[in-house]
């Protein structure tokens, strides 16, 4: 099949949904997304943009990495998102002595049956919160790789499917903190979004203090989205139309990161795809059934920034694994890539 025919097929897929249905399901999807966001916002204050980004990542079917200094609320955010989505929720607290088996589960001797049976690890969940991911050793980190990429786990040569939907939200401390292992680039590339939270303002912080003085509010959150609903939303995201002009814009942005003088390894094709998926999700959240360049522009720093490997000597030794330099490079690139009006 040549590329033109493929494109036509893509277009037909987009258009195969009847108009009336599209509008109706669209508003349902928008409702669900809004519900999710406002639910999370009950607990996480002053971080609307971050919440929207995480939700976009969730709806796109990708995984999200939240990076900031300890105590800035990243775990609360991840936790809140995880709890808002129904289904199984598990949490892995990473430490230096975490073993791969602690993540994936392992075969245990069952004395009554006189055989080894597989006991699933915490990874078998709809929503997995991996806290302080970079405190795990590379060996334990790599155990997550297959799971995140393939949605399967292989233990002792046996493949085990993970539940669907499967959403990983990981947090990470800046790598200059004591006792951390920088995430390998391959691992970083598997996260659809890498965002950092930044400090809260005084009023918000005060409100958070007041609430937290009473109790940890995140534990009161009720799920507002069933796993099936999330599956349907993710399907709906895939139906969001991407015009050729927008696709071209996305590819131009990705290509421009590769040509930036400060960059050793720019964003990959996987990065482009996941950026487009997130943009589709964001369009859905905004109640649109088509992606506009604004979606790409809004998401590109978070979707591409953490995947960019800087040229040696550009950002100094501390920047290893840090996303802020990459984000600023993507912003730089976005200012220069022309926005196409049409393909």
């Amino acid at each position, binding site marked *: 099949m040549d590329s033109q025919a493929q494109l036509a097929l893509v277009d037909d897929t987009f258009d195969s949904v009847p108009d009336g249905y599209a509008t109706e399901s669209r508003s349902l999807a928008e409702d669900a997304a809004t519900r999710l966001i406002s639910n999370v916002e009950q607990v996480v204050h002053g971080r609307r943009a971050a919440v929207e980004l995480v939700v976009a990542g969730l709806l796109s079917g990708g995984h999200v990495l939240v990076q900031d200094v300890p105590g800035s609320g990243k775990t609360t955010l991840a936790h809140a998102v995880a709890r808002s989505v129904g289904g199984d929720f598990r949490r892995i607290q990473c430490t230096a002595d975490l073993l791969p088996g602690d993540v994936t589960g392992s075969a245990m001797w069952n004395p009554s049956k006189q055989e080894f049976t597989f006991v699933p690890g915490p990874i078998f969940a709809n929503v997995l919160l991996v806290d302080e991911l970079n405190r795990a050793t590379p060996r334990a980190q790599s155990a997550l790789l297959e799971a995140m990429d393939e949605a399967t786990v292989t233990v002792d040569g046996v493949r085990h499917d993970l539940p669907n939907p499967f959403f990983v939200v990981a947090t990470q401390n800046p790598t200059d903190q004591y006792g951390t292992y920088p995430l390998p680039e391959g691992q970083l590339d598997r996260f659809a979004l890498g965002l950092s939270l930044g400090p809260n303002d005084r009023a918000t912080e005060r409100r958070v203090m007041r609430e937290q003085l009473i109790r940890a509010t995140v534990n009161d959150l009720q799920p507002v989205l069933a796993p099936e609903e999330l599956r349907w939303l993710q399907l709906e995201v895939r139906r969001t139309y991407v*015009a050729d002009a927008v696709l071209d814009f996305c590819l131009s942005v990705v290509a421009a990161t590769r040509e930036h003088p400060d960059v050793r390894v720019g964003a990959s094709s996987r990065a482009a795809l996941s950026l487009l998926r997130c943009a589709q999700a964001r369009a859905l959240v905004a109640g649109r*059934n088509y992606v*506009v*360049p*604004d979606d790409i522009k809004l998401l590109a720093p978070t979707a591409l920034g953490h995947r960019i490997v800087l040229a040696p000597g550009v950002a100094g030794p501390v920047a290893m694994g840090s996303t802020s330099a990459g984000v600023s490079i993507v912003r730089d690139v*976005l*200012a220069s890539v022309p926005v196409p009006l*049409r393909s």
Partner: protein
Amino acid sequence: MTPQAAELARQNARATRIAFMVAGACGEFAVQPLAPFPVWLAMLALFVVVALAAVGQPFAAVADGTDGTNRNRRVWPVRQLVAVVVIALAGAEALTQLRPGDVQSEGRTLALLMLFVQFAHALASRTRRETALGCGVVVATLAVAAVFGGDVTLIAPMALALAGVAVTAALLQRGVLLESATAVSAGSPASVVRACVAPLASALAIGALIFLALPDTSGLRVRSSLGGSGRLSGPAADRGVSGVGAVGAGTLDLNARGALSDAPVLEVDASAPRYWQGAVFADFDGRSWRSSRQGGLLLWTPDDGMLRPAGAPAPVRFRTDHATVLGGVDVVLAPGAPTGYAGPGTVVSDPDGNARFVGDGPDRNAGYDVASVLAGASDDALRAAAGADVDDPRWTAVPSVMAPRVRALAVQLTASASNRFDAVAAVEDYLKATETYDINSPLPRRGDDPIDDFLFVSHRGFCEQFATAAVMLLRSVGVPARLVTGYAFGDTTSRPGERIFRQRDAHAWVQVYYPGVGWVASDATPSGAAGAASSGAASVRERIAGALRAAWKRIPHGRVGAFVAVAAAFAIGAALVLLAGRGLARRRQRARATGRPDDGPVLAAYLRLERALAAQERARAPGETFGEFARRLGGLAVGAGEVARAMRCLEQECYGGRGRQPAPAEVAAAVAVFDRLRAAARDDVPVVVGNAPRR
């Protein structure tokens, strides 16, 4: 923002634009020393316009309507007040400075007026673009005036104006001058400089071009109160050089200038000599030449037939020529001193070589034959010329008021000359090398010594200055010389075999007496200058080249002049580069904004708007999305909410794909919004707040 306020804003913008067009046009005339109409009157009128605009209700209404913040209401009356005070001061200053008739003071006053107008406008203008444009027009006018007008005194106001531009830019940057703080908050210093420099440079270039293209009017009007002695003051004004008047009473005033029209005067055979003299002048009083009558008058009547004088010295050549009168002629024009005449009318002549018709000259198309004596010899013969010199003291007389440095210069020039011929050559060479021929050179001020002014101050003049200076220099060292007026070169192309003299071929040259030879013509005016304008059939290229040459000659010389010329050339070059760059950028922007046949109606409307905004350099930046651009759009004409809706509609049309296109009602609304924005942009009502982000 009410519709009335929007309408007022539109009217304001239009009035300001017209005012500046008038200012530009007046500025062009202001640089001409002898403008054909009292420029300052027009300037005062412009003043009133700006003053009214500054204090008028419309502006106040706009200030209220823009966004209605308290800040505007507080700032506005202060600005109004300052504008009024400035205008009043400037008006008073202008009135005390103006001395009608004094060209230079008028020019300086005009420059001053321009500055004040500029300042008042800066106070009254609403957008940065208007302010920058105002700065540009004023500075460009002054610069052009200084460079081409030859009045170096204009440099000071020019520097002031430049400083004014800098201050304006600084104030703009701080948001002091504009009522809408948002209009500058997004402007970086570079963009403000760009906004000021670009219009300035283009205005400079355009001003220079207009100046070069405008016909030089400085020679068209003779502002003199000569009381009838001026050669153009009587009915003879349109009769060319023949207006030298009666023999013995003819005058040639160096502080006045004749009209140089294309009217034909005389037609002779193409092979006839190129110089035809009409009047010989003996006495110079420091201001004007006068032919004095010496010896008896000779009356030639038609009955006399051709007279052939006998007993003339050997090298003298006689010749007889036939001429046809084409225009008013009241002296007998001949290649040399006329000695005989056969034709209509009665002629009275004197021994100097003046021959004048009694009463009116011959009718049009009447022909006459004239015999004349043409003295001439080879250079060596002239070097060796010896014998009895002419003993009339008139030929070596210099006016008592002549500046001593003229004589000093003459002595210095001729120090190494061993004979008369070499002395004449030295003087001629010096004049040709040092002085600049300029048919439009400013006339010396009444009361100034024209020769001193020509030789030592302005270094610019036309044939009369060259010839008079040569005669005075030669007479200072005892060489008998005299000034001759007539016609030179003429036009041999328009009618085959004929040489036609036109009024603009009028010329003045020198005759020097060589013992044993006679009065030999000598032309101190640089060759190619006299009569250069006479070929009516000059090609366009020649005309342009001529204009450029003339423009170059008009640049004042000397150290300051050279500096100004270099600076002006640099500025014009920079302006051209800037213009070209801007043009390219705009073309790129336009290419981006060019519509395609399959564009939807909303996109087409949006592209029209973008083209209009590109003219203001406020279009969407290439890297800006519609959403980001929409946040900058809006203002007086259309509300931000409407713009956002229209932009969403545009997005849907562009990126929605099949089956997701906007509804017809939305499309119509969006098109209407874009068209309204475009109309506002054309009328200079700010529709974009802040500058486009640039890389």
